């Protein structure tokens, strides 16, 4: 059975009633995991309260950061500051330069574009090529499809149809999320899959975009944020005898090796950073 994910639920955090209502409704609609955007300066107690509501509703929660930088430099600074504190990082691209930087940066998980200003949707061939190399995904919020009327909805559908075709051509994963601020605008995963047919997204791909694709990102990031993570495929397995073992090399390390590992990890990170920003 599929595990459905809504990685973008936008309740007003200050209104605890609404938060609880939306989380419970997500659970009723068949979601097993939700993502709520959290401000970096939010108190830890509020996050614990969110986690408590979710555990009561038998639903898992991921912490998500929505960035909307004005310049590529601002984006890099924000990523450096906040990446390791959030499980999902989404960038709303308001300019072409930000869109290109976000697409080529491996720290960015989701690329999001304005639904109302179609001139600010920069998901073209170049963007898709960069995104496919950096494992970024295209996020499509479904709420504008419900709230927009008439000509603006027609133009949005037409634009989404083109973007889905480009994403398919370059193998960029697509994520469908609700982006709902109001419980009335929340729909079940199967309803979203039906709505996705409006922009020529096959039913099976739409269901993947609501389950497997976001789950892959979350699992990858949770693994990376784990303190035992070293590199893709390599992590420390702590045995009961308190030995430190690197799984892929099957090598036993002493505590001093642990220090060396941290240094080499830092070097590797620096090299990667230099490659990215020469």
């Amino acid at each position, binding site marked *: 059975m599929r595990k459905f994910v809504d990685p973008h639920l936008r309740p007003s955090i200050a209104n605890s009633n609404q938060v609880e209502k939306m989380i419970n409704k997500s659970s009723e609609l068949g979601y097993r995991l939700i993502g709520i955007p959290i401000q970096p300066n939010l108190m830890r107690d509020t996050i614990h309260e969110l986690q408590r509501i979710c555990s009561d509703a038998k639903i898992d929660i991921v912490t998500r950061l929505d960035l909307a930088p004005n310049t590529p430099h601002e984006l890099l600074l924000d990523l450096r500051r906040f990446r390791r504190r959030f499980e999902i990082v989404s960038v709303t691209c308001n300019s072409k330069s930000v869109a290109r930087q976000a697409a080529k940066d491996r720290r960015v998980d989701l690329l999001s574009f304005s639904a109302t200003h179609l001139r600010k949707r920069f998901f073209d061939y170049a963007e898709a090529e960069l995104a496919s190399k950096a494992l970024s995904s295209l996020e499509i919020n479904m709420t504008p499809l*419900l709230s927009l009327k008439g000509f603006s909805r027609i133009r949005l559908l037409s634009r989404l149809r083109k973007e889905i075709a480009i994403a398919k051509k370059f193998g960029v994963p697509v994520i469908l999320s609700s982006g709902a601020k109001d419980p009335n605008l929340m729909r079940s995963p199967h309803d979203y899959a039906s709505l996705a047919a409006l922009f020529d997204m096959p039913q099976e791909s739409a269901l993947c975009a609501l389950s497997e694709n976001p789950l892959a990102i979350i699992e990858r990031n949770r693994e990376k944020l784990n303190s035992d993570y070293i590199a893709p495929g390599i992590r420390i397995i702590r045995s009961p005898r308190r030995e430190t073992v690197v799984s892929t090399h099957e090598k036993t390390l002493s505590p001093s090796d642990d220090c060396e590992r941290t240094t080499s990890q830092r070097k590797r990170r620096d090299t990667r950073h230099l490659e990215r920003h020469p």
Partner: protein
Amino acid sequence: MSEQLLNEKDVIHAIWSAILKLFGEHGASQVNLALIEHDPQKSYAVVRCLHKALEMVKASIASITEINGKPAAIHIVGVSGTLKALRKKSAM
């Protein structure tokens, strides 16, 4: 559905309007839509449509955001080929 009490006419009108908005008159002519059953107290309705037009109807129902000018949403509980199986599936 909505928190307000809706009559049969409101429900079917909302669905027809959504189909017309999304697929136009040509699309609406292919749906063969009919309201089979409606319970305003329990806020549920059973709707019949052509098998080929199922995805159109599902998308249209999902796109409904208001009925009679008030915020509302219709959620699909189940889809089935026969009414007997539908009642069994949805435990109505």
